[in-house]
């Protein structure tokens, strides 16, 4: 079993500038929300993407999965979300609301930012007034105020990703599945979005399964980093990350951070060769 999640003893919401009533709800004690047991995936063509994966995610845990390209990291998310069915093992999910953030922002180009953010709530038949209220809050949370009427083509890559994030936030998910959401962004935008995602996590205590190529990003964001091997993907090692939230961007330059990142990188390299 993995180590207990790191404490989430951050500053108050006011100090974080996150005084939204929906995010001030009390933190329930951690419970298991997603568990893979011996999960495996073999595609009809005969390719085995995943093999014997055991992974447990509790509420309030931010788990990153790093691994080489094509190791089946994304397949793990697709299984968790029900987009795909595992061919071996068991997948156990104990929540109602999942937020799935794709690699691309997947915004509808004919809808404005506001309309895009409202989309999922619309699909879930949430009444118009409530939908608008939630969208406004989400837009505020990701810092897109003033851009509500913009069409996606007027937005930068980072702003598109924020819109996509806001869209998921409207459903108040208990578990977020992130499929390399910042992979296509430039370094500076990526770091900024990391900070904001980290702040959101510190305030909202959702569970998260985050797929990434970047060891730095994984260590910076997560309570736990999972290292996967090349295809067929299986878990090589897990590293708890005990730095308290909210984390300062400069934490990336500390010795402890470098040491932990080094360990993760080494595990990744060993598994790859």
């Amino acid at each position: 079993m993995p180590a207990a999640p790191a404490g989430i003893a951050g500053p108050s919401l006011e100090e974080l500038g996150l005084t939204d009533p929906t995010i001030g709800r009390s933190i329930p004690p951690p419970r298991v929300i997603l568990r893979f047991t011996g999960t495996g995936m073999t595609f009809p063509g005969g390719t085995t993407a995943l093999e014997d994966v055991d992974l447990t995610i509790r509420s309030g845990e931010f788990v990153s999965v790093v691994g080489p390209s094509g190791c089946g990291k994304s397949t793990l998310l697709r299984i968790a979300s029900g987009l795909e069915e595992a061919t071996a093992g068991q997948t156990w999910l104990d929540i109602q609301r999942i937020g799935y953030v794709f690699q691309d922002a997947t915004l509808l180009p004919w809808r404005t930012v506001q309309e895009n953010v409202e989309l999922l709530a619309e699909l879930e038949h949430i009444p118009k007034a409530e939908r608008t209220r939630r969208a406004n809050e989400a837009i505020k949370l990701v810092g897109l105020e003033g851009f509500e009427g913009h069409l996606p083509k007027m937005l930068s890559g980072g702003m598109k990703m924020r819109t996509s994030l806001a869209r998921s936030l409207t459903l108040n998910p208990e578990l977020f599945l992130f499929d390399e959401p910042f992979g296509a962004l430039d370094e500076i935008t990526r770091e900024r979005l990391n900070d904001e995602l980290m702040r959101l996590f510190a305030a909202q205590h959702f569970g998260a399964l985050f797929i990434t190529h970047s060891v730095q990003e994984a260590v910076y964001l997560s309570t736990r980093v999972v290292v996967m091997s090349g295809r067929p993907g299986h878990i090589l090692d897990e590293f708890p990350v005990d730095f308290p939230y909210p984390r300062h961007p400069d934490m990336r330059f500390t010795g402890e951070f470098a040491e932990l990142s080094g360990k993760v990188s080494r595990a990744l390299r060993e598994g790859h060769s």
Partner: protein
Amino acid sequence: MTATVTAATASSVAANAASPGAAAGPSAPDAAPTGGATGPAKARGTGKAFRIVPPFVVAGLIVALWYLVSYGLLDASRRFLLPPLHSIFTDAFMNADTMGDIGLSLGRTAFVTLTGLAIAIVLGIAWAVAMSQARWLETSLFPYAVVLQCIPVLALVPLIGFWFGFGYPARIIVCIMISLFPMVSNTLFGLQSVGKAELELFKLHGTRRAVILKKLQFPAALPAIFAGMRISAGLSVVGAIVGDFFFRRGDPGLGALISTYQSRVQSVELFAAIFTAALFGVVIFMFFGWLGRRVVGKWHDFGGR
């Protein structure tokens, strides 16, 4: 199977990244695109003059050539083969009787064109939507859309008259047959242009097929649908004129009038009627271009200007 696609606009759902629009908005949280990023539009000749002047130059050349043939090559007795351009205006367009005839027949041809086009649009979209909903429907129905496109409609015209008589219904059927395929293929192409991730986003929320069609596929297909409408509109005019030639029962349309003028060697009137038909085709084509830009131009680079 979906090889023959007439869409002039490949509607990629991914929006263009850079646009100066955002720079004018409130302070961007992260680097908003600046005007520095040049779009592909800048690559070739710039400026309005560059787009407007050349067509007029070509028009001038054509007029010059016209007069050269009319006065230089043809002697007076044979000048009726290509009457001087201005005489078409003075003798036909400014002649009330001629214009009355042309106007009336244009009205009938326009009625046939627009009725046929409207039916083709509705039928074409419905056909494509049906095919987009099930793979087996696509594989069983698309070949017939292609067959329809491949049959020379002229070969069927006698049969159409045989079955439906030689009046308006037959003319409208020719219009439908000739303009249906671009609607079917473009709509289908548009509906299928939706990305896999976007579809999955909808599926994750248990969205019903009808809702996916309404909120995702159909809006995404609109640029291709409008491109199809523009092509079909032009074809429908052709269909109506062809129909006029063959189905003469009832009031004459432009095609019948053209044929009458030709048989009576009324060359000035003949040219006037041809010009009217051409102008009608251009107007209807431009109308659908305008309509397309109006509906989807905000978020999509709708082709043409």
